[in-house]
């Protein structure tokens, strides 16, 4: 028998869901509101929710004081660059592990994942010294390398699970149909793998965009992405809540927009194996 839900139950759950959703969204909303306040209003107790003097001066000041577009460009280049590097390594790796597994494949996968279990700060000093000695500090290239390699295990795992979902029969059918490895790749596997690759790509861009440990520690100005740009408002001359909020809002806006437009792809990708 199907489970029945009454209208009142639906109403209660709906209200509950909206409340939970609002609580989760609240910090972001508060940040956006604060970015339109004066520094004085931002500090006010009791906090002012909607009735304050609305101003966009913070955005002007932020843009004047630090070059938003430089940092945004750095973020775009490092996020996309590190993702491309990770994908270039991960696609063939996940590919061979999914379609030509050996006895050690599971071990390698677990080993790769285990590297994500170590806190990055554990290797900060050696990596910092290597970067210093190889002139990679505060360079886009340096950041692309560390972010790309840092996310590599997760990318390989995601792609591996997608590739695993492709039925072996279909590849064998292609082989019986006379397809060479190359043609099998172009005509059969790639079209079937595209949704999985696309959602891995999106997720990795978001992860790289938001990464704040390596970006803060390995960059200062020239290659600093938006995370460093936000952080610069929390330290030198004390806290400026309104400007910090304005900077943060500007920093998350691009990725929020990207996420919004690709949400269908993301959700499909993340639930790929679960629901078909």
């Amino acid at each position, binding site marked *: 028998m199907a489970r029945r839900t009454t209208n009142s139950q639906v109403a209660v759950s709906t209200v509950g869901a909206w409340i939970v959703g609002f609580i989760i969204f609240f910090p972001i909303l508060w940040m956006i509101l604060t970015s339109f306040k004066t520094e004085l209003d931002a500090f006010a107790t009791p906090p002012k929710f909607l009735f304050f003097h609305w101003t966009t001066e913070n955005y002007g000041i932020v843009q004047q004081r630090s070059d938003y577009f430089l940092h945004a460009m750095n973020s775009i280049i490092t996020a996309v660059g590190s993702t491309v590097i990770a994908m270039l390594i991960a696609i063939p790796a996940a590919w061979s592990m999914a379609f030509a597994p050996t006895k050690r494949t599971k071990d390698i996968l677990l080993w790769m994942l285990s590297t994500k279990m170590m806190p990055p700060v554990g290797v900060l000093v050696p990596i910092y010294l290597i970067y210093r000695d190889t002139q990679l500090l505060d360079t886009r290239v340096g950041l692309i390398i560390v972010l790309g390699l840092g996310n590599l295990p997760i990318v390989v795992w995601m792609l591996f699970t997608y590739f695993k979902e492709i039925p072996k029969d279909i590849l064998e059918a*292609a*082989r019986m*149909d*006379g397809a060479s490895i190359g043609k099998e790749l172009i005509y059969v596997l790639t079209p*079937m793998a595209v949704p999985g690759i696309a959602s891995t790509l999106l997720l990795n861009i978001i992860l790289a965009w938001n990464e704040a440990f390596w970006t803060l520690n390995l960059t200062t100005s020239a290659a600093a992405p938006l995370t460093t740009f936000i952080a610069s408002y929390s330290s030198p001359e004390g806290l400026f809540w309104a400007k910090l909020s304005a900077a943060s809002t500007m920093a998350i806006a691009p990725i929020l927009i990207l996420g919004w437009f690709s949400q269908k792809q993301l959700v499909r990708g993340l639930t790929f194996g679960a629901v078909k």
Partner: protein
Amino acid sequence: MGSITLEHVKKSFGTNDIIPDASLEIADKSFVVFVGPSGCGKTTLLRLIAGLEDTTAGKILIDGKDVTNVPPAKRGLSMVFQSYALYPHMSVRGNIGFGLKMAGAPKAEIDKKVEHAAGILNLTSYLERKPRELSGGQRQRVAIGRAIVREPKAFLFDEPLSNLDAALRVQMRLEVTRLQKDLATTAVYVTHDQVEAMTMADKIVVLNAGRIEQYGSPLELYERPVNQFVAGFIGSPKMNFIGGAAAKEAGAATIGIRPEHITVTKDGEGWDGMVNVAEHLGSDTFLYVDVPGIGQLTARGTGELGIHSKQKVRLMPQQQHLHRFDEAGHAI
């Protein structure tokens, strides 16, 4: 042309011998069915012929040419998979024409051949659809279309009908048989369904634990099984096996008698028995009879016998249809 020869083919996974030693001659244009219980190695044997698995030892020849180390794409065979294995992102047209496209055939020729195959299989109005928009039977036809359009040396079928419902299965069984005769192309067909094997095959290979138990025409296997395994596997309901004194009388360790070769009477000659269960099919009556000192025997009578459970009957095995087996289970 499409004769296939296996010479002492062996396949092991690790230390596990799936196929210890198989030799077989499949004649050109014949329909050969591999049948056996699950796990007997019939699918592995088919995949070895296809080239999807590597042989551990032995040789595979197609038209007398050694293809043991030739990749599947170059063997000139086509295969129909149990799961159909259609390309989900291609239309029916794309699926059927894929093999020709891979062979580099010109577009006009591909279209002509695809449309011809679609005509044979009643798929003409579905050519632009994706596999997910088709029913199980239609997908099956597409998979067959993909196999026939390339005019291969032989078709390999891996339990192609097992995902269809009973009525459709009977219909497709007929169509596949008819198609194979029309195209005059060798076919190797794997199934666990002995009715499919009996009805479709020119010759049947009965496999058990990776060994070829018997290779012969359906009626040869039915009338002259070489051992107890084949005798028990071919025929439905199963052959009755009787040991002990009754067997010794016939000079064997075990005797076998098929249910249809037992004459059932209410008070004639033969063993005394009590009907345990009676199944009335209208066309046939199946009786499961307890015979003291022998055990339960199955008897089959044509038409309605008017015998019901808990009734006493007499069972008389027809002597000319008695099968005798020695201690090792070989036919005497």
